[in-house]
């Protein structure tokens, strides 16, 4: 039987909760009311549970936490962190690991966004978890919000791991502007979370989502300057890279880390991605 669930998500109705339970006036314009006394409590509980669920799944831990550190190790052993010499014209004039540390923070944000989120969201949708949540009137903004919050927390942990590893073993310098780096990281995470949510909304099954996520992950990993520096990429590679969100994430975080500047072009592209993908996913995401 063709299934037609009622719930298109309505981003406009998400928001803080009124203080009272029981009968309350209908919301303006007759929109379904989704806020209620337990809304934020449920959001935080769900986020906490999501974080625990993440820790119980070895594959995601490997991709999010171990893989970037392993790649950093390989790059560090190959290129070291001494500026100049053969590295002079390659790593923007700085040490290789000074170049890679911020780039891999962007990679962590991407990995959480395009690998973890779509797999989780499609699984919930196709497997009946969303049905279960919805039947108990768990607000959908709490379901999606908890995923994004959990992704942000995991991204922070993964980034700290990458940065600490680079600092301890390859003496990477301290970020020139920690504030801009943090702001850039949040923006980067938001853009990739929006992409991941959109993938989770359009992919039919967890397997499809995982396949698409992994493909995006590796294409971006190699063509956005995060692994192969822009300076040694062919024109074609650079042109492809111009269309990849990670390129802008890498630019933004590298500018903040080395130089302490804010790359407005990159920031605007990422804000655009976050808004467009976020809006589309909220339009498309349906209850199971």
């Amino acid at each position, binding site marked *: 039987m063709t299934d037609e669930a009622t719930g298109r998500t309505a981003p406009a109705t998400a928001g803080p909760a009124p203080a009272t339970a029981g009968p309350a006036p209908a919301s303006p314009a007759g929109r379904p009311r989704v806020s209620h006394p337990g809304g934020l409590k449920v959001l935080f509980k769900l986020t906490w549970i999501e974080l625990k669920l993440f820790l119980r799944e070895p594959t995601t831990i490997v991709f999010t936490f171990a893989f970037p550190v392993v790649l950093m190790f390989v790059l560090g052993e190959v290129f070291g962190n001494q500026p100049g010499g053969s590295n002079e014209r390659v790593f923007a004039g700085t040490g290789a690991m000074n170049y890679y540390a911020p780039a891999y923070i962007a990679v962590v944000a991407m990995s959480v966004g395009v690998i973890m989120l779509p797999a989780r969201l499609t699984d919930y949708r196709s497997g009946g978890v969303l049905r279960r949540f919805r039947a108990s*009137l768990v607000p959908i903004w709490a379901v999606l919000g908890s995923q994004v919050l959990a992704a942000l927390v995991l991204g922070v942990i993964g980034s700290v791991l990458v940065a600490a590893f680079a600092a301890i073993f390859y003496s990477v310098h301290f970020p020139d502007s920690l504030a801009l780096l943090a702001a850039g990281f949040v923006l980067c995470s938001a853009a990739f979370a929006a992409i991941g949510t959109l993938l989770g909304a359009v992919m039919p099954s967890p397997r499809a989502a995982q396949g698409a996520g992994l493909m995006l992950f590796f294409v971006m990993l190699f063509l956005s300057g995060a692994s192969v520096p822009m300076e040694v990429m062919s024109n074609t590679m650079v042109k492809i890279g111009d269309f990849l969100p990670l390129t802008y994430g890498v630019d933004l975080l590298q500018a903040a880390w080395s130089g302490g500047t804010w790359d407005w072009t990159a920031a605007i592209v990422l804000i655009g991605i976050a808004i467009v993908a976020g809006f589309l996913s909220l339009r498309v995401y349906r209850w199971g």
Partner: protein
Amino acid sequence: MPPVITVEHLRKVYSHHVVAVDDVSFEVEKGEIFGLLGSNGAGKTTTVECVQGLRTPTGGTVRVLGKDPVHHAGDLRGRMGCQLQESRLPDHMKVWEALDLFAALAPGIVEWQTLLEQWGLAEKRNASFANLSGGQRQRLFIALALVSSPEVVFLDEMTTGLDPAARRIAWDLIEKIRDRGTTVVLVTHFMDEAERLCDRVAVVDKGRVIAADTPRGLVVRYDPLEQVVFTCEMPEIAWLNDVPGARSVTRRGPRVVVEGTGPLLAHVGAALVQRDLACEDLRVIEPSLEDVFLTLTGHLVED
């Protein structure tokens, strides 16, 4: 007192013009166990999903506790509890985490620890959802349905997949839910379950309610014949046709079956005593809901 649920001319058409629910009307009173009885595909589940606000009806009106479940979902949060067919929790979510999460949806503090005990899940509180058996998952879902102390609970085919012993336990538990004042809507295709539990039953067939009454009322109205059965060696049985109320007399091996109305058992017994016939295991078989269902729909429920 206004009814807890009012459904008037509910209609639900899916895409491709599949009519799941054609025209369904019923009311559920406070404190009763109301059964939606029908074969698979009759439209029961779609009906309750519309009542729960999970689907938007194509036509008709639905009111739960006076509210429209689709447009005033927020007002009903915590006041309705549902145990769903074909739903799941994340594999690695633990039993206590699920209860704690769903308890957070209800206003006020909820003592979900007692639910763990009541539903035999105390030993499984740290088990992952993926590691629960079918029966344990069912009980967890019922506990989740009850965690917000709802005024009305929907149970959809909840004993499907349970072994007979677990079914009996589930039945007792459903009666306990009703006894604490919660209205129960029970969706089932098991006749014995509906007969045993329901205060009132709506028989659903091909997207319509074809009869609604107490199980006893349905039997009296649609299939009033009862059977008196006994074991007797006598060769001649035709005289039993003259017993008041008897409609037919048949022999099935060593057993004689008299079908008819009225206090048939007393009349047959008296006639046997009069003739001085010693008969073993004289008893009455009352018509069941299953017979009514067959009479009403003309097909077996498993069809």
